[in-house]
């Protein structure tokens, strides 16, 4: 039964991908890519990767669709018909695909428990997490402690993206004058009321996800994205300027940097106890307590940076002066 659901979702995904390939109106392409992410999130849940599914849904369906739509608002609607010959790309793609299929021939079968992947490094994580870190969610344990440095790299990557977008778009952000007031959708009464109602729970849910990461799916990254989603809705409905009063650009830039500093700061602390970098055992009374404190701190850093990057990116995109009037939406 399991594999049937698997196959169905995969075939559905393939269908969406081909649809994206064929469509020329960019608006539907973006929507389809949102669908693609959601369905892959569903598939990931089915493959027992709950954390990844959560992130994929939050990022794939949420943030990237928002960014793409705001790019469309600033650029063009339709894709010009391609003039270039399709032969070379087809050959390249076909050969790569063939090589990959050739590569799958010696792979362990899907879901085969005796595959080398499950024999060598993973068993220790599963068995040792209980007593070494004492945290039910093994993925968060591995993410924040065993391979904590990878996550520091991840935070730095998202920090780089934030800085890069600021570098590229900060120059052309127009000053929030009274003109921007019209974009606040006064006449959307229903939206304004519902948003006011929803923003509270969304922020609450974000904090829940942030600290629930140790026990169930969740963690710094997902929390950050949800936190940013709250501010994006607020900015969309109540206008960039009012959102700017709530969370000003300067504050976002400080939060951006602070998250990374918190994360690397936690790592540096262990130097003074003569332990290697990112060794949390020194932080608490016992080694296990230290791990808990360390992971919470680290996840907090991740959450802060991710939220700040998403908000600052949205501010940068929304701040550009759109060539088309707002009515054309």
């Amino acid at each position, binding site marked *: 039964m399991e594999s049937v659901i698997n196959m169905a979702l995969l075939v559905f995904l393939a269908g969406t991908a081909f649809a994206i390939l064929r469509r020329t109106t960019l608006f539907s392409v973006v929507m389809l890519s949102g669908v693609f992410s959601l369905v892959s999130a569903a598939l990931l849940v089915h493959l027992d990767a709950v954390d990844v599914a959560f992130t994929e849904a939050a990022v794939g369906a949420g943030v990237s669709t928002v960014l793409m739509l705001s790019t469309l608002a600033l650029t063009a609607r339709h894709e010009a018909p391609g003039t270039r010959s399709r032969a070379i790309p087809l050959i390249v793609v076909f050969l790569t695909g063939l090589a990959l299929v050739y590569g799958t021939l010696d792979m362990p079968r899907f879901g085969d428990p005796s595959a080398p992947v499950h024999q060598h490094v993973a068993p220790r994580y599963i068995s040792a997490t209980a007593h070494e870190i004492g945290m039910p969610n093994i993925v968060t344990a591995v993410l924040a402690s065993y391979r904590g440095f990878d996550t520091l790299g991840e935070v730095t990557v998202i*920090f780089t993206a934030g800085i890069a977008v600021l570098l590229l778009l900060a120059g052309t952000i127009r000053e929030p004058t009274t003109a921007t007031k019209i974009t606040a959708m006064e006449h959307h009464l229903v939206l304004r009321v519902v948003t006011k109602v929803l923003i509270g729970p969304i922020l609450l849910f974000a904090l829940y996800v942030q600290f629930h990461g140790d026990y169930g799916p969740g963690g710094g990254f997902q929390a950050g994205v949800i936190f940013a989603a709250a501010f994006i809705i607020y900015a969309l409905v109540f206008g960039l300027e009012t959102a700017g009063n709530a969370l000003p650009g300067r504050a976002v830039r400080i939060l951006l940097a602070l998250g990374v500093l918190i994360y690397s700061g936690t790592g540096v602390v262990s130097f003074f106890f003569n332990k290697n970098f990112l060794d949390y055992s020194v932080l608490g009374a016992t080694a296990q307590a230290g791990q808990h404190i360390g992971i919470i701190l680290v996840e907090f850093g991740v959450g802060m940076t991710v939220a700040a990057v998403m908000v600052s990116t949205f501010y940068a995109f929304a701040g550009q002066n759109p060539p088309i009037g707002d009515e054309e939406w």
Partner: protein
Amino acid sequence: MISAHLPILQVIVPLIAAPLSAFCRRAGVAWYLSLVICAVSFAISIALLIQVLEEGHISYLLGSWAAPWGIEYRVDVVNAFVLMIISGIGTAVLPYARTSIAAEIEPHNQALFYTAYLLCLTGLLGMVITGDAFNAFVFLEISSLSTYALVALGAGTDRRALSAAYTYLVMGTIGATFFVIGIGLVYMMTGTLNMADLAARLQGLEHNRTVLVAFAFIVTGIGLKLALFPMHLWLPNAYAFAPSAVTVFLAATATKAAVYLLLRFLFTVFGIDYHILGLTMTWLFTPLALAAMFAASTVAIFQVELKRMLAYSSVAQIGYMVLGMSFLSVTGLTATIIHLFNHALMKGALFMVLGAIVLRQGAATFNTIRGLGRKMPWTMAAFVTGGLSLIGVPLTVGFVSKWYLVAAALESGRWPLAVLIVLSSLLAVIYVWRVVEAAYLEEPPADSKATEAPLSMLVPTWILIAANIYFGVDAGLTSRIASAGARLLLGVAQ
């Protein structure tokens, strides 16, 4: 206490400095902070190199978790040497960048420029020092993302920097994704991500088709990042339209880190006796390297813009490094490793000269450098010396690399290759001398008000030129390190 944590400090110092520099409002403060940080990281890399030369190799467990479970930093002679190159060039570029950036980038971006610069440095250092395959991918992405942003900053002077950055982003991401697919397949067959552990567990999987495809994907992925010949289309535009200081830093370090990564995966992870390695070397790398050397140099001859000309010459020089690798001999690998260092010095100095010309003349093309020999004597003298080093005239670093490369070709018995190597360096004579002739033997336009480059740019240029000559005259140290690294990679007894 500090010396125990040197490997991680090498990456953490610039990593922490990047957010700190994001706090600075004024470019001056950010520049000063980055200069101090780069100097510190250069000092760390030298200390590491000395420590490694004594002890062989250093292993640093992150989070004190044992090797295959946690992430491990393995520093040996090869990557200590590359670390020193990257942080050394990073330190040399900064004093140069202050004036060059002030002229080429919009004022509001200048403070954040240094943050992106530090992130790029962190990415490169992290990529080179790590002993974990996936960690290398993460830091490869950090350096690539900041590089795309840095290249796009060239839009201050020329809008083509944007399309160049976009093409670079697309090809770079495809390369990185190929690399991740390769790592994924190798992880699937061995279950571990630590490079040393991977090497041990791959021994048994000689004729496994998945490992073979993984090898192909990893090589293609890094090849794209490396701008190996057929996949180099993004490099000329990216280097030509990026701000000059960025081109200096990228030309001298970015491709080096990618070459190091290729060396590390080919010789440490898959190992010298991996049956496909020999075949790929003779039938794929050698022809591609030769094609790179000849095609890129010939195209360089016909360029009007000097930065693009030197960019094509960089593609040719990468061909030399890959050719050195393809001999699978100690001398060949020594040639590749020493050319990493020599090429960084050569290209760093040459691009710095072009940056000075761009500062004074607005652009570095054949009609803006006419008669500059008299107007900007020191800058053009630096160009001549750098050009001679590029050609491979004795008493310069270029000669040392050519010497080892030709010796490797002759040792492997394929003497026609030796002649081809030398012929392609003659192509370099043509395009270097076109510039020298335009600069010295032609009269400057009457109204040209070019004056000598400012001291803050001349001093770093001449430091690199002096290094070019010093390591050309006394190549004892560099060749000792390079041959130790080569023997280590090939697993030959020290």
